[in-house]
């Protein structure tokens, strides 16, 4: 815990130290604001008392009115400037942290990302970082400012009349106690309400995304009924949360009203005893209205501070997550390399523990420039093998070599820029065609993009896009499954890697397009070391070698023609067993 706290302090220091000038300025502004805020009622009380005094001149009263106006205008200025300076400092720090956090997280390996949903990442990188901002603005502006204001109010009261000062102090302490006790009354209902809202809206999001299925199933009315049920739950907590939440503003208001009664009663007694002027009662009444809200702010903010701290601790925690992958030093040469799997065994890391192995003792060698067809049933470990080749994970034992070096010896960035992959599920961004092809790399020219699309036979498709390369691709609808696969191929084409992996690239492409694609692939794959995974035997026609995986083990490896012509080989059996016509 102590260690955690230290890192927590380091984090605040790292991101706020560069803003130290603004922070000092901020503290100065808060002090000024408070002083001016207290000065206003004081002027009013002087006005009242001077008016009663028979020796007063009208110029004196007019001066007070003028000073009052100027004071209040300055006060607003100070308060505004404090907010602005505070927010600037907070945002600058938060955005720097956001950038660092994104940089850190994006480099983490897949064993981390596999456990996260995009929603959680939004919470980590945006929500939790915002808590740093909140921590700062609340700590300094709300709590700091409130404490200073309360202390100076009590001080001024003591200066004028110690009895009123004592009364004010006791009231503040008592109120603080009451408000601190009551501050959490509504929290369980708010949380339940937020949970109900989250359920309602994620239900809605999921159904909207699946609207085609809902229509096909004719279950619209059913969905609407469930919507009503979810809304009713949310309403119930909304109302409960409001009523209990009322405590947080009703009690302070009631306390303020009671303080007014106390001041009037005690004040009239002091006045009648000749100890204070009538103006001082007016001033005390105005101060009385002022003090309740800072007390409330302190009571409320302390909790928010804790929440913010929890957020910051999560940030610290995420920052200390290390990728399981240690970057290497070797660069990859431009020569097309051979690929070797040497007794590769792999189990997915599951948090700290390790699951059962997905691959066991897999060994085979692909000569430079050769094409290997990888076959096997769903779950046989094909996709895993590919992920390993990409170093999304490190092997548990054994080694994978590209050229002369094992994967961990290479620079990760170099490795990934020299190996191209088309996955089963193409991940498209809700972004323009251009950004989907370039991954936001502004250096790639439109000509290159158009050339890539033409090579892959997507020219007609592009011409149908209403804004050409600037068309935003929606998550569903606009791009067919086959087109998405072609876009993924275009990405690889743009990258010009030396090793290419096609994972089920033709699964959703019809034979005619596939034929067109074959031609394109000839260009893309020419001279590259290639691994093609396919459920369909048809895809493996272009292969020099065939590897068959079953239950994580290499069942068969050999030259394509050799295996085809060996009657008892697994490959030949597969060809005969029903997929024959597809290969014919």
């Amino acid at each position, binding site marked *: 815990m102590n260690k955690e706290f230290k890192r927590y302090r380091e984090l605040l220091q790292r991101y706020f130290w560069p803003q130290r000038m603004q922070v000092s300025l901020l503290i100065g502004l808060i002090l000024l604001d408070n002083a001016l805020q207290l000065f206003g009622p004081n002027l009013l009380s002087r006005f009242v008392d001077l008016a009663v005094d028979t020796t007063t001149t009208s110029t004196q009263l007019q001066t007070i*009115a003028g000073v009052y106006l100027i004071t209040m205008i300055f006060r607003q200025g100070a308060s505004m400037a404090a907010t602005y300076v505070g927010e600037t400092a907070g945002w600058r720090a938060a955005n720097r942290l956001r950038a660092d956090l*994104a940089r850190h997280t994006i480099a983490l390996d897949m064993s981390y990302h596999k456990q996260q949903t*995009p929603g959680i990442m939004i919470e980590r990188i945006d929500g939790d970082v915002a808590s740093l901002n909140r921590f700062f603005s609340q700590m300094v502006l709300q709590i700091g400012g409130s404490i200073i204001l309360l202390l100076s109010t009590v001080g001024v009261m003591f200066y004028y009349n110690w009895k009123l000062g004592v009364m004010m102090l006791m009231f503040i302490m008592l109120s603080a106690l009451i408000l601190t006790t009551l501050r959490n009354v509504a929290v369980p209902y708010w949380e339940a309400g937020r949970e109900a809202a989250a359920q309602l809206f994620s239900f809605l999001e999921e159904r909207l995304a699946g609207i*085609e*299925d809902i229509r*096909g199933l004719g279950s619209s009315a059913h969905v609407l009924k469930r919507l009503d049920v979810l809304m009713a739950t949310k309403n119930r907590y909304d109302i409960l949360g409001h009523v209990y939440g009322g405590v947080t503003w009703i009690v302070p208001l009631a306390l303020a009203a009671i303080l007014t009664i106390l001041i*009037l009663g005690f004040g009239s007694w002091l006045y009648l005893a000749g100890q204070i002027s009538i103006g001082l009662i*007016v001033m005390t009444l105005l101060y009385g209205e002022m003090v309740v809200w800072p007390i409330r702010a302190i009571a409320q903010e302390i909790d928010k501070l804790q929440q913010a701290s929890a957020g910051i601790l999560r940030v610290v925690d995420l920052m200390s997550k290390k990728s399981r992958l240690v970057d290497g030093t070797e660069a990859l040469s431009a020569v097309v390399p051979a690929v070797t799997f040497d007794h590769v065994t792999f189990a997915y890391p599951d948090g700290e523990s390790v699951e059962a192995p997905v691959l066991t003792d897999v060994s085979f060698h692909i000569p430079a420039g050769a094409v290997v067809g990888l076959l096997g049933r769903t779950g046989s470990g094909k996709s895993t093998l590919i992920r390993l080749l990409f170093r999304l994970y490190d092997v548990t034992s054994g080694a994978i070599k590209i050229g002369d070096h094992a994967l961990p010896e290479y620079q990760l960035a170099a490795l990934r820029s020299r190996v191209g992959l088309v996955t089963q599920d193409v991940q498209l961004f809700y972004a323009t065609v251009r950004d989907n092809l370039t*991954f936001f790399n502004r250096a790639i020219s439109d000509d290159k993009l158009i050339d890539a699309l033409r090579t892959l036979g997507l020219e007609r498709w592009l011409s149908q896009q209403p804004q050409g390369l600037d068309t935003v691709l929606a998550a569903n609808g606009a791009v067919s499954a086959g087109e998405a696969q072609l876009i993924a191929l275009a*990405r690889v084409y743009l990258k010009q890697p030396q090793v290419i992996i096609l994972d089920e690239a033709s699964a959703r492409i019809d034979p005619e397009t596939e034929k067109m694609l074959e031609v394109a692939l000839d260009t893309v794959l020419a001279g590259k070391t290639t691994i093609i995974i396919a459920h369909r035997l048809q895809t493996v026609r272009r292969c020099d070698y065939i590897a068959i995986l079953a239950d994580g083990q290499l069942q068969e490896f050999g030259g394509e023609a050799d295996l085809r012509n060996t009657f008892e080989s697994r490959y030949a059996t597969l060809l005969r067993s029903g997929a024959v016509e597809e290969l014919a």
Partner: protein
Amino acid sequence: MKTTAPLTMIWRMMRQGGWWYVINLTVVVVLLLVELLPGLINRQVLNDLQSKQQMSIPWLLLAALLGITLTRVVMWFALSYTNPKTRVRSENVMRHSLLSRIFQQPAVAALKGSPGEIVSRFRDDIGELPHVVLQLNDIIALVCFAAVSFYVMYQISAPATISIAAPLVLIVVGARFAYNRIYIYRQERRRATGRVVGFIAETFGAIQAVQVAGAEQHVLEHFDELNQIREKATLREVLFDGLLDAMFRNAVSLGTAIMMYMVYKQAMAGEFRAGDVSFFVYSLGAISELLGELGIFIGRQQQLRVSIQRLENIGHGLPAEQLFDDSSFPSQMPLPRLATLSVRNLAVQWANGNYGVRGVDLDLAPGRLVVITGAVGAGKTTLLRAVLGMLPRAEGDIVWNGEKITNPDLQLLPPAVAYTSQVPRLFSDSIVENITQGRVVAESEMDEAIHGAVMEYDIAQFEHGVSTMVGSRGVRLSGGQIQRAAFARMLYERPQVWLIDDVSSALDVLTEKKLWERFISIRAEVACLIVSHRPQVMSMANEVIVLKNGEIAARGSYAELLESGVLSH
């Protein structure tokens, strides 16, 4: 399409609130009038003290203040109950009607924007609209308060009251313009925030693709850019918010300063006493609150208009006021037992004038199987969607037993017709709920559906069998399992027509083979329209239709098409 005026909308929401609205209004108005009493009593006490009419502690008035405080507490709580009670009535009816409306559109074109964006409108726009009604009640109450307090102030000092009123009016006018501005700034900030959040989701949703492409650096640069834009937008809004806030607070200070200027002579003559000063300040506080509320209210008209437009946009032009009309989902129109189902001269036209499909004729009957095949983008999926009415038809008819289908969205549904899309989606429920979709669970039919979809081994492996929760969008299942679960979902209803869009793309060879083998026996009495490239499926078909650029390029039996060279092995 005419956009509903904000005032009409407010009126509809008031009516939707019903008695709760009336009660809410009554409570607010009475409460605010009660709030005047402490100001008046304070004034009395202070004035009496100053003029020496009160020579002891005013116990009676203090007791009255205590009583008033208790009354206020009770009414505040009443307000925190009636406020949400009034509001949720409108929220519920709008959300229900809007979703109902969206569901009644041709499914493929039903969403105007990403689902996330539409949800944000359901959440934010509908969430905010009813607040305007509550705010209007506050304003009505504050106006009552202001009227009475101005009357009292006028009695105390007419010149001071008049001089205070003039600048206040100016501030309201200024606020009107300022709020339009602030609305724009707020929109900009929201948009900037939305882009940052959306980008995080996109990046980490596709993190594998990003890592594989080695695109980390470019993605981070883009992220930084978006963050900068958001920072600027936020700070601008903060600054402007502060300015506006200062304006209203200064209304009190300005009023107080003016008061001092105007009354100093009266004060020196003993006609304007401590209690009067106190009352002026007390009233000005509430009046500046009124100004603030008025400013916000006026500023919100613009926002209201935009919210209404946003709702009307995702609701396909349904005027927002009609969201309050009867919104029960139209009931299904049952079809007679199928003899023939014919598609005649079907065409779908895109917004840019191109045809998705054109001039398609085909015939289905119980037991008849038609396969659609063709290149990527040939219009296969479009054709299936158009037959179902998920896309609006530009031309042509769908004819069921000789009768034209007039309302496909209510007619071509289970139990008559079932459909499985190319990339089916499951919902985060159990497998059973996904398959039955709220219909009665019949165990034997469930087993048959699961068997037909070759899913029995998978189900047996799941710890909780068919009660297994599939996770958000089915993430806990593999791609092949999702496709087969969706297939089971279609089989479960035992409809008379099946439309299947390339359901087997994520299945391995043996599983797929088994699926189609089982299919032969269960499809005997069913009319089938299937998009597929699989020879196994095409060879089962009574007719294969080859689409090219949206039109029928060739048709015939698989053998004929092979022979004529249209299709090759």
